[in-house]
């Protein structure tokens, strides 16, 4: 057994005992219900700045959070050690907060019958990942750095590579007990291209994978794509000013469109009357070209989990089908307030997948006389009104299918409720973004582009 695995096993046993003792102590202090969430992590991390190793970091950490309900009031506390006096003080603090809070008859926790212990998702733990040493990580990082700096015009501001092994447990006083372990190798990098006085826009990328095996190939492929992109974005022009079509890359689909859709699906928005999709289940809310699902058991995605933040078993769920809203996203509390059922998405959704469409990507770029291809969005989105406004970063301007060049100082603005209903094309190809979700490319209409 690797040293890391051994450490995780030992720490998790202690935390398991501490969590049970905390539930008992909380009960002895007259709490009506208590939830304890505990985790421990062993992490190794290497940092490169300006092409030079600058830091090696190793860390063992633990976190305990607890939530108490008392006389229909709630209070919570968190700490980073599992010693008995500290945990007992945390229970006292949480109960003190609850005493001065406002009564809420909808507070709820699931019973063990609603949240049976789940079977761990086997792909989330990889023994090989837990065996990785700092030396292995150093070789991995050096290979990435060599790829990223092959072209001398590429300036890498920061590169980080890490492995982490984690155990997580969730318990409540009604008998719920869920645990899972997870290993991950993660990398992220940021930089730009510099050619004399010409500086491209800043960009970044990265992802996470459960398994060490195959992760270097993924990382190197991403490095090659990144360097090609930042060099291509040198010598930017200003896009023309117009209102009309833009092509959103998968990353832009996530950054611009996804948050607003999730806001209006969220049980918290529904219960407070803030959702525009409050009574829209079964109705068309966006273009019929959009299909969105959450698949927490999909091994491609780093957010996979067998249980949600309430301890309920998770499952694949269709959220939007042919533009029709299929469900809101409820945890136990929002479901209770809305007289609905939890969708086991407390802390979620976990692994979003937007289905590919029917349109060829090249044809999507070529078929429009004027098209801004937006890769990143740096700006503000008001999910309540749907208004968005910001800078199109790492983006390019196409005229009659010809790539005119990268753009700078180009802003985009519009209303997302309009844009989501004006989807013109969805690509057959998709990308896994940071290993956490899958998105296609989309052409949308009704966007104001302010350039020259």
């Amino acid at each position, binding site marked *: 057994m690797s040293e890391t695995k051994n450490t995780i096993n030992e720490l998790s046993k202690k935390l398991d005992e501490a969590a049970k003792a905390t539930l008992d102590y909380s009960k002895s202090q007259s709490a009506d219900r208590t939830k304890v969430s505990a985790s421990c992590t062993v992490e190794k991390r290497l940092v490169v700045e300006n092409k030079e190793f600058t830091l090696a970091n190793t860390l063992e950490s633990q976190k305990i959070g607890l939530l108490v309900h008392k006389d229909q009031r*709630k209070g919570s506390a*968190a700490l980073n050690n599992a010693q008995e006096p500290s945990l007992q003080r945390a229970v006292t603090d949480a109960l003190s*907060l609850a005493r001065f809070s406002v009564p*809420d008859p909808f507070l709820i926790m699931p019973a063990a019958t609603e949240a049976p212990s789940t079977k761990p998702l086997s792909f989330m733990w990889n023994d090989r990942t837990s065996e990785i040493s700092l030396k292995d990580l150093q070789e991995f990082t050096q290979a990435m750095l060599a790829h990223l700096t092959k072209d001398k015009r590429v300036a890498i501001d920061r590169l980080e590579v890490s492995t982490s092994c984690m155990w997580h447990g969730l318990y409540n006083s009604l008998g719920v007990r869920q645990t899972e372990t997870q290993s991950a190798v993660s990398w992220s990098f940021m930089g730009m291209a510099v050619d004399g006085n010409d500086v491209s826009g800043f960009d970044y990328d990265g992802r996470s994978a459960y398994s060490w095996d195959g992760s270097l190939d993924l990382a190197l492929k991403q490095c090659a794509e990144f360097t090609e992109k930042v060099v291509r974005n040198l010598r930017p022009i200003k896009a023309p000013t117009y209102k009309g079509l833009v092509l959103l890359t998968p990353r832009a689909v996530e950054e611009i469109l996804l948050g607003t859709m999730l806001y209006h699906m969220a049980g918290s928005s529904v219960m407070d009357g803030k959702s525009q999709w409050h009574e829209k289940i079964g109705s068309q809310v966006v273009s019929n070209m959009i299909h969105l699902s959450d698949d927490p058991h999909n091994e491609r995605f780093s957010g996979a989990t067998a249980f949600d933040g309430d301890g309920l078993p998770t499952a694949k769920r269709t959220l939007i089908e042919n533009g029709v809203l299929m469900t809101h996203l409820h945890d136990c509390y929002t479901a209770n307030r809305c007289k609905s059922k939890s969708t086991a998405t407390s802390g979620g959704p976990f692994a979003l997948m937007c289905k590919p469409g029917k349109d060829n990507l090249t044809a999507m770029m070529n078929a429009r006389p004027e098209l801004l291809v937006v890769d990143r969005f740096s700006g503000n989105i008001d999910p309540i*009104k749907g208004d968005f406004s910001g800078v199109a970063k790492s983006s390019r301007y196409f005229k009659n299918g010809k790539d005119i060049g990268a753009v700078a100082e180009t802003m985009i603005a519009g209303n997302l409720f309009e844009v989501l209903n004006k989807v013109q094309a969805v690509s057959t190809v998709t990308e896994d973004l940071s290993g956490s979700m899958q998105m296609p490319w989309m052409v949308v209409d009704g966007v104001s582009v302010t350039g020259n």
Partner: protein
Amino acid sequence: MSMKQILHNLVHRQSGYVELRWHKRTSQSFVATKGRVDVANTSTTEGVGVRALVDGAWGFAATADISEPSIKRAIQQAQANAALLAKARKGHTIALKTGRLCTKDFVGDGFAELQQMQIADKLGKVIDLEKQLAKSSQRMHTAKVRYTEYMEEKAIVTSDGANCSLKIAQPELALSAIAEKDGQRATGGKGAGVSGGWTCLFNHPTLNHVVDDIAKTTVDLLDAKYPEGGRKKVILAPAVVGLLCHEAIGHTVEADFVKAGSVAAGKIGQAVASPLVTMADSGQESIAGYAVGNLPFDDEGVETENTIIIKDGKLVSYLHNRETAAEFGVNPTGNSRAWLFSDEPLIRMRNTYLLPGQSKLADMIATMDDGYLVEGAGSGQADSNGEFMFGCSHVWEIKNGKKTNLLREATLSGIAFDVLKTVDAVSSEFQWDLGTGHCGKGQPAKVDAGGPYIRCEINVGGRQS
């Protein structure tokens, strides 16, 4: 024995450079909305972070167990990590500039006041403010009030002489609202954060009449139009000036970004702004005394200072830690900060601001034919190439020397130094106004920013017909 003494005893048994940082953060957080308390939380994080410099390379380790044996193990681990890295480094070895290493113990204003205050009083005030805001107008759909306080306790001991401790309090309050009319919604909000106690927080000028101000602006925005996009002459309010200083300039002059090739690289001594512009980043601001980024020393144990970045339009300094100061041949500026004990220190801003000038806001408006007064700073981001964007919750139209219509939110963008070169007026009125929330750079950091009103030209993102 105090934690500082324990660290001191451990450091002096080590060879080579070792930096020990004990950090305990106790925080409270309350959120009230719709007559409920959504969050009533207390949190404690405590541990020791260790940085070791071995053969010119850094190693880091941290432990939440603050017993001597555990800290000793963390020191050994950090040294082993550094030794491993030293073999992999090809270029220069890391050296440290000493600077003014702090040997004082510091207790900030308001720490005792907040520590002694009852939870019931703090939470009760949050619940009461939410009620007031919810009832402030018939058009009010949602009111939300968030209070967060950080009680920071630190001891920093380095093998080359830093030996200091601090206790500081950083409370903040933010109110937000959604108004509704005929299915249309508008949002608004304000907030303030201070380095000080409860009394200091509620004396912040932003919180004067805060409920009435938010209610009026949010309801008025229901009937407001959008601003027209394009390059515009604008007057930026202090919060927006603070955002410009922080996002568009401040990040580009952080020496780690400068080394990576930011737009500020190689520009020391050059004119980068209008001669009316003098900009600084201060760890011990004296204009108001309560800005949230006030710190007596940074996380390398270096005493903080008021660092002038741009003087009369010329770039005069970057922001440094001990390592970059040695590399650039200057003194460290006290900008090395870590969020938690388990985070390594990075170069971060503290209180970033433009110094006040000679003009009066009223005169700046009166001498403007056409443009906007931009208020209500939102979030912002900037690139190393100096391109920035930030949002604002509302703008006022200025026509023929008069402030006229209230307009909806806008996003502003530009190239930082280009925008600063267009500054043609700087007001004498000044305010810190960015003390809520956090700056993000891998780790969060509590910072503040502010300034006078300035008049300049900027890109306004708007709607095209």
